[in-house]
């Protein structure tokens, strides 16, 4: 049952002041790894080369994860550094400075495996302590970080209700004793948490486990009505927002406990990679976006203030089919309406391996099965410099689910098809009848499954939606029946209607803000692994 306001106020009455136990972890080895990866990211970002920027984005993502999630210090870290290629190739491509940073990062990534991640040690000790005292506690983390927390306790699994993953989870939780949070307090991006953690606490003690040099966001705990938490005394004119305010927020008492290797010198604000990465991503031409997760592996990114065509299955709702704002009027449990107009035959609930995808995926699976290293080498040589190329290829081999899994970039797809040596003859089609290269037809097929047709101006949105809504209203009972039973379903448009094709409905699993993304990826179904790189 969701918490009541009375329970929250009773709690606040009993706890007019709360405490932060900040465990600040110092590690010279991890510090060296951080510093050198940061150097590599900075240098790779300076150039105009898209491939380099993509590599930088992957490294940025990895390091952001290490700083905000209690990952195991294992070979995966070294593998991440190795994804740049071998040392000689790195130097040949990016120069001496990057090579040096690469060598040092490899050294640190190898050495770091000698001991357990101290963040994991702290979490284990803390939870054991809380358990022994019979106190109620929760962990705030991203859903994808959960597995790392769970792996700390193989013999004493964490309770299902121990995790909070979203502002909605936090909003509904009953007051408890301690909140465990890894990483700095940030309102957006990696390791983000709701401002309400500070401005509206539901717990007495915040146990924060954070790497040195990762300060909290300056205005975390923002309340537009009150003075900002931790604001310094104003020396100039007092902002209007603070003139008429009586601030009655809870008082926080912070206690910093330094843990680990005192020779680590990264503990300065300049060492804050998360802030550095945020500024890097701001500098590029990106747009803010909200992620609407539609299944376990896929989501759609919408720009701010998007009016999304949706269906609400709640009984007695006035307008079940309507435009809604993600995170505002569009909430978890509703359905995103995804038209597949003009689609010839994309199968029932699956995107299906269309004519072209069937051919290239079959070829790719064969090559990846029998000569994986050779395939990866050729893809790299031909310009696909993706980090974890192996796992990307594995992903592309997967049968179609929500979409046809394929490279996100058109250039990469072209390369893939070239390396697989597929052309019109190979596919059995007549090249005379087809004027464009084979890969372009295959790319169109992928794009169609991703909904690009809808985005590319092929149809006029509003007119289409108006007609679509009218058709869907006629089929409301069928849609409502399906919605009771399935998270994803499809409704065919009757053949006598002006629009042709089908409409797919995806139940919204979660909604998350805090992404900066290129325009080209907006309003398209994209796998969550890819989306992670745009988390701020």
């Amino acid at each position: 049952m969701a918490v009541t306001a009375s329970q929250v106020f009773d709690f606040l009455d009993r706890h007019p002041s709360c405490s932060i136990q900040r465990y600040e972890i110092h590690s010279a080895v991890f510090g060296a790894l951080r510093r050198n990866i940061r150097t590599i990211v900075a240098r790779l970002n300076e150039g105009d080369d898209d491939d380099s920027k993509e590599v930088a984005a992957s490294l940025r993502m990895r390091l952001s994860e290490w700083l905000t999630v209690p990952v195991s210090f294992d070979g995966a870290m070294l593998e991440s550094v190795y994804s740049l290629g071998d040392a000689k190739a790195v130097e040949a491509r990016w120069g001496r400075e990057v090579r040096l940073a690469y060598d040092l990062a490899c050294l640190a990534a190898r050495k770091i495996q000698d001991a357990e991640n101290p963040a994991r040690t702290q979490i284990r000790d803390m939870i054991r302590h809380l358990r022994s005292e019979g106190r109620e506690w929760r962990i705030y983390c991203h859903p994808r970080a959960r597995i790392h927390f769970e792996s700390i306790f193989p013999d004493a699994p964490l309770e299902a209700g121990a995790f909070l993953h979203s502002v909605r989870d936090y909003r509904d939780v009953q007051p408890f004793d301690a909140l465990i949070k890894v990483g700095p307090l940030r309102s957006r991006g990696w390791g983000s948490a709701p401002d309400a953690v500070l401005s509206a606490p539901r717990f007495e003690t915040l146990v924060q486990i954070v790497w040195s040099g990762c300060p909290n966001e300056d205005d975390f705990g923002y309340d537009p009505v009150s003075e900002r938490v931790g604001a310094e005394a104003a020396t100039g004119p007092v902002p209007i927002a603070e003139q008429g305010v009586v601030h009655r927020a809870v008082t926080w008492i912070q206690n910093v406990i330094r843990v680990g290797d005192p020779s680590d010198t990264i503990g300065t604000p300049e060492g804050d990679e998360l802030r550095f990465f945020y500024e890097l991503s701001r500098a590029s031409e990106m747009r803010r976006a909200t992620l609407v997760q539609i299944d376990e592996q896929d989501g759609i990114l919408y720009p701010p203030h998007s009016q999304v065509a949706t269906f609400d299955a709640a009984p007695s709702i006035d307008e079940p089919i309507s435009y809604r704002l993600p995170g505002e009027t569009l909430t978890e449990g509703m359905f995103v309406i995804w038209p597949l107009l003009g689609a010839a035959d994309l199968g029932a609930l699956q995107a299906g391996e269309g004519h072209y995808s069937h051919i290239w995926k079959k070829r790719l699976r064969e090559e990846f099965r029998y000569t994986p290293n050779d395939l990866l080498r050729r893809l790299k040589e031909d310009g696909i410099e993706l980090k974890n190329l192996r796992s990307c290829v594995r992903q592309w081999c997967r049968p179609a689910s929500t979409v046809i899994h394929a490279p996100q970039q058109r250039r990469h797809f072209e390369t893939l098809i070239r390396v697989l040596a597929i052309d019109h003859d190979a596919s059995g089609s007549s090249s005379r009848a087809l004027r464009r290269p084979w890969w372009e037809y295959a790319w169109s097929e992928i794009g169609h499954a991703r909904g690009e047709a809808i985005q590319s101006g092929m149809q006029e949105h509003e007119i289409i939606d108006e007609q679509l809504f009218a058709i869907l209203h006629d089929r409301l009972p069928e849609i409502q029946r399906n919605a009771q039973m399935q998270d994803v379903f499809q409704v065919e448009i009757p053949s006598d209607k002006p629009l042709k094709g089908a409409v797919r409905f995806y139940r919204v699993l979660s909604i998350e803000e805090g992404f900066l993304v290129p325009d080209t990826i907006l309003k398209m179904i994209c796998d969550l692994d890819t989306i992670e790189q745009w988390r701020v």
Partner: protein
Amino acid sequence: MQFSEANGPWRAIPGWVDFLIKSGSAWGDTIPNGRRIGLISMPCESAAAGLVALGAMRHRLAIDGANDSLSHFRRIEQLATRRDVETFLRHDSYRGRFRLESKDQSGLLWVRTETVRMAILPSNVHGWTLDGEAPVQASQGAELPHRDFYEELMHDAGKPILSNFGHSDSGTCLAGRVAGESVSKSLFAGVRFQCRDYVADLSCLLTIQDWSPGTISRVAFFNARTGRLDRNTGLTRLVVADGHSAFLKVIEAAEFRNSNVVGVIHRAVDRDKLEAIGVKIENLAQWYAADNDMQERIQPAPTGITTLALRRR
């Protein structure tokens, strides 16, 4: 007076509820000498907006003549001049919908059905109700129930005036959640008061027309999702907006450009939503200054609630 939330045990009215009702009363008490804007920031999801609206309503119950009666005839007159919309009325004795016609040459207002034509005069106007709205005046015996509740809510305020229980009033308006009217209503329905042996929930006590049909209404309702106001009398003095989106809509709505506005938000939302409010406050700073008088009147706030009061310069 006892209080219960979400079927919890009965208890004395808690401090936060008392604060919100009194704040509503204070906001309802402002003299119209410059528009005021207020914000109440809550630490959690709650029925706070409804409680503030209840406080404002309670304040107006104690003001003699705080109702829509005097303006009713004038409003019908104005509607009769409009060519762009058809207006229908109902009468408390005659059945059917009557279409409002333009004034005739002698200045009389006429309404008609297919079979009957009748004149509306200032002396009989209270028998006429705009179709879909609450009656301006309750018929004998159909006045508002729960009088004791309103009186007990604020002992130290003026006693409610009896005649107000029989007249609708649009001085206070509640703007519901942008997620839908039903969301606000269900939250308010979970907040109950017990006075002697009787129990009433907040959604009933607010007397919103669609939620308590068949009687007069002393709180107008603005659907922030559809932008529909249940009766646009032009008499709204205070709008209480439930949630940040409703607040942002109301502050820009033409219907309320001269009304005071109190937004009730909560902080357990994404940063973008908090910042949207912050940006709006910064923008308002060009024309508004801190209203220290109001701020003093509504203090002290319970721990966890922050407030802001601004007044047009």
